[in-house]
């Protein structure tokens, strides 16, 4: 994963540029990783199948190319971002490299960051950071996977930049006025991941245990890491 990443990967997020209010449009069954045999064929899926068939017949692409790309896309998951943060919590040198060049630091953990540019922003006791993409759904997919529905919802995109504290309260995070809340609006050329504060009481934990405390939503500032059970 290197030279060709940039060509074909940075598109993956940029293009999700519309709101995600489809929960009301059609039924969704929880089978994200295999054939939806138990889901009725929808007009959208039929159109996709027809288009794919035509593209293959026209020789513009192959089914194998699609499957290979699907495998690449499937590697993105919040666990990748959590691994990076956990390493940064325990290794100050790694953290310095991650803040300087996140893509290169990710490669140390065998994570290929496919986005054009990635910036990691660190939460502090004084400042909490929240990520949004107001125009679309730009998101560091290779570190976090597909964005959640709330992230691409019109309500979040609209309100996160206007009333972030209120939105955060709805997510269960209530920061005192002494903590500054900064909102970062992503775009096709620059994505953000948040490095949350390491929770107190986690001094004895190893990287894997620490990573398990870091949920998807922590990595965009919409949640705080858990505490050890």
């Amino acid at each position, binding site marked *: 994963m290197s030279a060709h990443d940039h060509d*074909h*990967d940075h*598109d993956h997020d*940029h*293009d999700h*540029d*519309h*709101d*995600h*209010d*489809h*929960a009301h*449009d*059609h039924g*969704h*069954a929880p*089978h*994200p*990783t*295999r*054939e939806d045999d138990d*889901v009725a*064929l929808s*007009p*959208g*899926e*039929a*159109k*996709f*199948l*027809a*288009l*794919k*068939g*035509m*593209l*293959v017949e*026209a020789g*513009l*692409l192959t*089914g194998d190319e*699609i499957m290979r*790309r*699907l495998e690449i*896309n*499937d590697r993105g998951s919040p666990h990748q971002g959590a691994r990076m943060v956990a390493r940064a919590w325990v290794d100050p040198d790694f953290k310095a490299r991650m803040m300087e060049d996140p893509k290169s630091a990710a490669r140390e953990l065998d994570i290929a960051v496919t986005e054009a540019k990635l910036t990691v922003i660190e939460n502090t006791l004084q400042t909490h950071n929240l990520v*949004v993409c*107001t*125009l679309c759904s730009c998101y560091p997919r290779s570190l976090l996977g597909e964005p*959640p*529905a*709330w992230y*691409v*919802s*019109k*309500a*979040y995109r*609209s*309100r996160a930049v*206007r009333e972030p504290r209120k939105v955060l309260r709805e997510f269960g995070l209530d920061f005192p006025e002494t903590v500054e809340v900064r909102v970062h609006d992503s775009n096709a050329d620059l994505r953000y991941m948040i490095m949350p504060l390491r929770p107190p009481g986690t001094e004895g934990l190893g990287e894997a245990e620490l990573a398990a405390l870091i949920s998807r939503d922590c990595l965009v500032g919409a949640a705080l890491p858990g505490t050890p059970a």
Partner: protein
Amino acid sequence: MADRLITDVGGLPAGEVPREEVPQLYWEKLMIAMFNVLVAKGFLTLDEFRRAVEEMSPETYRKTSFYNRRLDCIARLLDEKGLISADVLARRTDAILAAGTRDHVG
């Protein structure tokens, strides 16, 4: 306000953020991968795609789901470029829907 694109919603009033988790369907994942391949091979660019989304009428934009919007814009761009006929695509889509099966599709 009048000059805003349909996608330009930052700062607008809106209701509560929906928190329901909505997993992707398998065909949606395949469609995204197909889109990525089309871009990687140079048949589409992201800027063209954004333009196609922004050209949607507000009515169509609002009533079309996230993945269907993506698919419609891909198909429209490929038709514009003379690569895939929208008419043929519509006929084949209808045929697949009428058959009601995912079999025999390449």
